[in-house]
């Protein structure tokens, strides 16, 4: 016998209660903290010559900075710039 599928809405317009909001917030914070810890560990990892990954990130950033200096460009915010480049390298790396 064929059964008709009913599409049930999983959410309604009512907002979540405060306990659920707190739960999702703490889960999100935990995930964020976990990602940050993984990233910091990855920076400390070394290659075969005992050179940590953070050194590669620094060389990379310095090389880019040299290119920008050559073309007379200024970086808006050094910290954000460094963070974004480091994240870019991390996301493209196997870890």
């Amino acid at each position: 016998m064929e059964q008709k599928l009913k599409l049930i809405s999983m959410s309604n317009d009512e907002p979540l209660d405060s306990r659920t909001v707190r739960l999702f917030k703490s889960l999100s914070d935990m995930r964020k903290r976990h990602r940050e810890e993984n990233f910091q560990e990855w920076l400390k990892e070394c290659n075969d010559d005992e050179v940590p990954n953070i050194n590669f990130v620094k060389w990379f950033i310095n090389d880019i900075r040299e290119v920008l200096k050559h073309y007379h460009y200024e970086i808006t915010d050094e910290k954000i710039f460094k963070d974004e480049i480091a994240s870019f390298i991390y996301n493209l790396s196997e870890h």
Partner: protein
Amino acid sequence: MPSIKKKPTVYDNIHDTEISFADYVKTLTIEDFLNYSKTCKYLEDQHTLDFDYLPREAIERCYERMKKNADAYFPGILGKDYKIEEGNSLAFLIFNNLNLKTDITVFHECPELARGIDKMDDDFATNHIVVKNKKSETEKNIYTKQKKKFDWGTKTYK
């Protein structure tokens, strides 16, 4: 014979301060050009084109060099980029972190590019009104959401 000193008229004052549009453009600062939408757009477009011409390629070459170094000495780093094609993404990321590099001498050489900047006040007023309308619209939406209140007596939303 007593000398008669001519009283300065309104027309004399106007004559003293009148300058050509080209000279007026030369008196303007970078902020003035950035505050006027037409010249601001021109400077931003020029900034993008300048970056696209040489620096972008230099960054891509730099990335390729670093990728080769990573493959040789840091196995795993940049390992997900198998085809060495993320240089363009890097250039885009870097471009978003740069200050606007401008050269306002182009307006001195070709004042027509800044035509209308002397009526900047009008343009600014128009822009200001547009922004104000957007803001009030957002506020209106927020207000509608906040209006919904929970009634603990009946345990429903009003």
